């Protein structure tokens, strides 16, 4: 009886093993081979043929790139979708491929590029497209010319303002598996990463590179958290810009409004002409709060506005109620389809001369130019002349970074004049340093540089500079609700409550 059971067991086991073989997709014991690409080949098809499953293509890419380091006759595959006939590939054994695929995941693209003796530099950011990616490449080029033996790995995660990137990064930090350096909005966003546990302070780097002398004092104040610097800022964007279509204003004989009274007058005149006076796109959830932060700065003034974020001014202050009233009145002039549009979708109103004004950060400048639209003008948003609502991207130094020395070299490049001059004209932002050459920048950016040097600099909450992340989330939620409720008193109470919960207000 026992023997029969045993036999059954063996049969069952054999079947299980056979199934495992099918599932793990190794039809035969494939040995390591070299392969020369023919026209029409794809990594996917090759992986399917040699390794039994198309999904194993990263194993081919990784083994080929690794081989390329010692033997340059093998190809170096920068982009899996761009391979050329004649390239020599190294197809790993089924076992090696299996082991690699077990360790690999799309969040660790650095594994695809082999490991050099001189090490790597894994730069994690959310800059994937357009001017942002070009700017990043500019920084990479400078770094590459200084440290040619270091392999730069561009570990990007797409998603506006990093809202997909941050969850990925946080799980990596908690798991003790950080990239070498990562993008971080300068300011209190750093609180969300628990810097004392997960990041290294950068005070030494600021001292050795003389960064305290070249950044404006207001910026240094924003960068400091718990008495230390946690990131080197590479650029500056301005949040409070009113973009307008010059020809609409010229036809109507109007000038861009500087005060709130002028804004209402201009908006009424435009409405009478059948143009949408003020356009917004709010589908991303952050755009309405972005406009409100500028309304708040333009209503309360620089000093009170800053005080709201430091606890010196309570949110029960009358200017907050006034700002909410202004915002509410602004919403009566807005395009009806704003919840279906992103900010650039709303920008098409200006491009198509159907809408006259829009408040958006100065990344809109790059977007207008990419659209071939030249008829735009700019001014500080109503009431905010002399105020620069700033946000900035910086690079940090996580603890346990696998290539710490390379990362330190990287943040030094980010802070250097050379690095910032390479990055910012392409990204469409201005230098955090005050000594960049204006001739490298376009007309708008030159005016922003002048303002950066002379205006009162205040932080943007929506873009991570002014407040900790949980507070920003509450702030945004309150404003999103306000757009439909219009409840000034209730929203003001919610904003005060958010400040209390953040531990800033009492």
């Amino acid at each position, binding site marked *: 009886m*026992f023997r029969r059971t045993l036999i059954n067991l063996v049969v069952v086991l054999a079947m299980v093993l056979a199934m495992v073989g099918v599932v793990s997709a190794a039809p035969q014991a494939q040995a390591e081979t070299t392969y020369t690409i023919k026209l029409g080949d794809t990594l996917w098809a090759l992986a399917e043929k040699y390794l039994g499953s198309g999904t194993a293509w990263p194993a081919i890419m990784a083994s080929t790139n690794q081989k390329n380091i010692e033997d340059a006759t093998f190809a170096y595959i920068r982009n899996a979708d761009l391979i050329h006939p004649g390239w020599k590939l190294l197809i790993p054994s089924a076992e090696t491929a299996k082991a690699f695929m077990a360790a690999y995941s799309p969040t660790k693209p650095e594994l695809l590029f082999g490991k050099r003796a001189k090490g790597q530099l894994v730069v994690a950011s959310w800059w994937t497209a357009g001017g942002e990616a070009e700017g990043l490449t500019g920084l990479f080029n400078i770094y590459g010319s200084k440290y040619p033996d270091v392999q730069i790995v561009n570990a990007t995660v797409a998603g506006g303002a990093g809202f997909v990137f941050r969850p990925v990064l946080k799980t990596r930090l908690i798991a003790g598996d950080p990239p070498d350096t990562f993008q971080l909005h300068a300011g209190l966003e750093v609180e969300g990463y628990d810097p004392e546990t997960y990041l290294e302070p950068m005070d030494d780097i600021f001292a050795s590179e003389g960064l305290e002398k070249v950044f404006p004092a207001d910026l240094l104040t924003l960068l400091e958290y718990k008495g230390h610097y946690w990131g080197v800022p590479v650029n500056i964007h301005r949040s409070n810009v009113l973009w307008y279509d010059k020809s609409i204003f010229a036809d109507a004989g109007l000038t861009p409004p500087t005060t709130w009274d002028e804004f209402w007058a201009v908006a009424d005149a435009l409405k009478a002409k059948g143009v949408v006076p003020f356009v917004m796109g709010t589908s991303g959830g952050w755009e309405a709060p972005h406009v409100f932060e500028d309304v708040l700065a333009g209503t309360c003034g620089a000093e009170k506005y800053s005080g709201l974020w430091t606890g010196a001014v309570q949110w029960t202050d009358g200017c907050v109620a006034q700002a909410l009233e202004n915002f509410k009145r602004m919403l009566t002039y807005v395009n009806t389809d704003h919840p279906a549009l992103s900010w650039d979708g709303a920008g098409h109103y200006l491009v198509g001369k159907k809408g006259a004004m829009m408040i958006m950060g100065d990344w809109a400048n790059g977007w207008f130019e990419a659209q071939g639209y030249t008829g735009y003008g700019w001014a500080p948003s109503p009431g905010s002349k002399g105020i620069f609502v700033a946000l900035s991207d910086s690079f940090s130094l996580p603890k346990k970074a696998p290539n710490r020395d390379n990362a330190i070299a990287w943040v030094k490049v980010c802070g250097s004049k050379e690095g910032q001059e390479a990055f910012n004209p392409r990204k469409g932002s201005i230098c955090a340093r005050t000594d960049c050459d204006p001739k490298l920048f376009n007309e708008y950016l030159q005016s922003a540089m002048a303002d950066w040097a002379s205006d009162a600099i205040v932080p943007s909450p929506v873009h991570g500079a002014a407040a900790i992340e949980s507070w920003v989330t509450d702030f945004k939620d309150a404003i999103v609700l306000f*757009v439909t409720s219009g409840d000034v008193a209730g929203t003001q109470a919610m904003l005060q409550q958010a400040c209390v919960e953040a531990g800033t207000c009492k």
Partner: protein
Amino acid sequence: MRRWDRERIIPILLILPSVIAIAVFVYGFIGFTGFVSFTKWNKLLPDFSLAGLRNYQTLFANRRFQIDMRNMVVFTVLFLISCLAIGFLLAFLLDQRIKGENLFRSIYLFPMAVSFIVTGVAWRWLLNPGSAEMGSTGVNLLFDTVGLGFLKTGWFTDPKIGIKAVAIAAVWQMSGYVMAMYLAGLRGIPEELREAARVDGASEVQILWHVIVPLLRPITLGAIIVLGHIALKIYDLIVAMTGPGIGFSCDVPAYFMWDTTFQANRFAQGASIATILLVMVGVLIVPYLAYSLRKEAEV
């Protein structure tokens, strides 16, 4: 006694690995999530000191969460009723042995084959209202073209519609599935039963109500369970189609959970939302499980 041991132990050993894996990776983590929801882990750095029910209290006092719960109920009810009604109607019509039945069946069933992300993107375009200045788009444009301009609405951009517009897309996707279930059920009803009813003088309407519908009850129940838990967990469709919407009119607890966990670093609060969702799905599923277990015992 020895025989009993071997006969029993080997199968137990064979299923043990999967039992352990499920115990750890499903029930273990459910338990962990439940535990986290009672802690103070509302920063990136884990903090497992207990907070009692505080996370739940703040959650239910949160305006956004209240809206989310209401949205979820509205969505679930609309989605369930519409899917069942449309699915039954389609199945009933197809059951009339019409020509080209296979073709129609495939057409109605196809939407189920696409993912909610694809559905979301497509319906985002279809239900994008456009505006007076830039011109109508999508369905509104269609209304304009055929002279039904008065039917134009703001769809998901209108806070009064909001989540209901999302339900339209979800119903489009899932009603074919309900049709397939009902069709199988209808085909399983023996012709003799209808004949018998006809002999007794029942009208076709009476046959429908008193013979067919009661016999389809198990299928209706099964469909409610499947659709119900899809409705409670809906997230991908919202992300692709509308986001949280104007004044959170398209927001659901699952979206809020993601926001509060990963944007605001309130891990404990996120775990509370997850736990509430689990309990709600449980309320829906457990009676069904009990029912089908009892059925099995009877057979």
